[in-house]
């Protein structure tokens, strides 16, 4: 059991919803990540997803595209991200999940990536381009390293496939709430889809992401799942230069909304 699965089962036992926050590594400044992660965890985030920037982020909307481009200009690399993880680990046990595209990992070396990520203190990896079928490529690395392989389901995923993806996943199941790129405004939370995932995915906790930006939306999505993932809304605040105190207050308000009876 890694930190991620431990936290999720702790929350589940207490019937509490999980709040996962996504931020792009090396954004807004090259050295921002450790400090931001600690502040967000302190404000009530249960899980932090650290985005590994890629030059061609085709699953991302404009907000995360922009942050990725800035992060690359800031010189962020996988090695640098793992350094940041080690810094965070000196003071915080918050579950850390790396999210990114496959090519930088292939370039870094798949075996080396999993070994270094695990020893640095990473708990799970999300690769949105890695389909269930292609995930066999990394299966051995995931099991050897003890990192959770977090796969995604989308509204277009047929029910039997949702079950198969859940079976192959560890940590949690990432439920993409709308057909679209990150940050796209969905047409409300698709309750029917979430209910279907709930029924078909029984192995892992289900966390809902894509297009959630307010405490109200988070609370609604959490009614039909085990928690929410917020990314673009956080990056947008960072890009507008919002002070960290105001951002952590916003995170706390979402945490409170999720915890309210």
């Amino acid at each position, binding site marked *: 059991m890694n930190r991620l699965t431990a936290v999720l089962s702790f929350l589940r036992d207490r019937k509490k919803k999980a709040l996962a926050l996504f931020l792009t590594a090396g954004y807004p400044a090259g050295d921002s990540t450790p400090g931001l992660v600690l502040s967000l965890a302190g404000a009530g985030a249960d899980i932090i997803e650290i985005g590994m920037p*890629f*030059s*061609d*982020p*085709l*699953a991302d*909307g404009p907000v995360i*595209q922009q942050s990725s*481009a800035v992060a*690359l200009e800031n010189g962020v*690399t*996988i090695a640098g991200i793992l350094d940041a993880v080690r810094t965070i680990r000196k003071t915080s046990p918050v579950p850390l999940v790396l999210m990114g*595209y*496959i*090519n*930088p*990992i*292939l*370039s*870094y070396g798949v075996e080396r990536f999993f070994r270094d990520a695990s020893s640095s203190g990473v708990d799970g990896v999300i690769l*949105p*381009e*890695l*389909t*269930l*079928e*292609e995930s066999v490529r990394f299966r051995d690395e995931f099991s050897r390293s003890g990192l959770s392989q977090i*796969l*995604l*389901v*989308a*509204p*277009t*995923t*047929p029910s039997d*496939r949702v079950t198969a*993806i859940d079976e192959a996943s560890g940590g949690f199941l990432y439920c*993409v709430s709308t*057909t*679209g*790129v990150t940050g*796209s405004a969905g047409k409300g939370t698709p309750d029917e889809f979430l209910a279907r995932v709930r029924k078909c995915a029984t192995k892992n906790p289900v966390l809902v992401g894509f297009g959630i930006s307010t405490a109200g939306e988070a609370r609604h999505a959490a009614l039909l799942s085990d928690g929410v993932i917020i990314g673009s809304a956080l990056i947008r605040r960072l890009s507008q230069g919002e002070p960290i105190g105001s951002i952590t207050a916003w995170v706390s308000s979402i945490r409170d909304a999720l915890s309210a009876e």
Partner: protein
Amino acid sequence: MTGPRIGEERGSPFSWPDGRGYFGLYGGQFVPETLVPALRELESTYESARDDSAFQEEYLRLLIDFAGRPTPLTFAERLTAHYGRGRVYLKREDLCHTGAHKINNTVGQILLALRSGKTRIIAETGAGQHGVATATVAAKMGLECCVYMGEDDVARQRLNVRRMEMLGATVVTVRSGSRTLKDATSEAIRDWVSNVEDTFYIIGSVVGPHPYPMMVRDFQSVIGRETSSQIQKKEGKAPDFLLACVGGGSNAIGLFHPFLGTRAVMTGVEAAGEGLDSLRHAATLTRGRPGVLHGSLSYLLQDANGQVQLAHSISAGLDYPGVGPEHSALKDSGRVRYVSVTDAEALEAARLISRLEGIIPALETAHALAYLKTLMNETRKDDVVVVSLSGRGDKDMETYSTHSR
């Protein structure tokens, strides 16, 4: 039209791809989960269409009556005399409707769109030839069409933007990243992820996730099949050398594929831009290494950290840091060799062919023609060389006149 029908070479020694969409080590499906069901559906739609004689007939009828096939195989008499070696033939894809080979593929894919009940068409385009070919078939079939094109390409291929607009398509200018084909493709994929329920994505080259590289190859293989029967009639033998330019690689694979089982020497020509050592080139197979971009694993121009490197070519159609996965497999197997020529060599070749043969080639095509000066040294008098004259040069007149001054 003669020769076997689309998809029939699958039983040849080169029966790629396998069931998972791999050409040897390359290919596959690396896409967001949202698109996986759509790709599954496309695979089954394509397979059922390929086995359906009514679909095959409709496709051939459109190629003949609408696209203007078969295209001639022209003996390049003065070019042959110029080199004084083997006999050079030009496969005249420039004479296809819309001015390039791209229509072979869009005719096929629009029929698949209709077959699957999709009402909206999207495409990416570099030089604009694929965009025009897509806008053309969408207009003919009465479907809404949206084409993504990088800002730099919109500027250098203005004529094709006007053509797409006249055909009723919406051209979306892409301002992110390199502002060329790479980012136009990313943006088209993002559109598809967002509108997958009613939208059919017509990819313009043998790139992208499975089944696109296979499907586009099958549609483009009409080039090689026609060449095979035409050269038999003219020369009484199979060609000894085949030559084509490679960006994504659709005209090259279309010419090469039916000949993979023969002894023909095949050469794909990439864009060396300002030179291979300048870092301003698009020679993916020559200078890249395997990586994942736009849904498949293939050779890729990338930096030491796996970030995609910006490509450069004077030709918008070759200005792409990736390449079709089948080309990567053909390179590794040694069956096809890949070389490169610079912007300057391509411009010089375009002028030469215009003056000697009365054909103004597209800048992309000019890269293949530029390699003749090297290739012809390998040929003997009775050798037959076929060059894919993949497109005409009207769209490039501004570039040509700028550089002739």
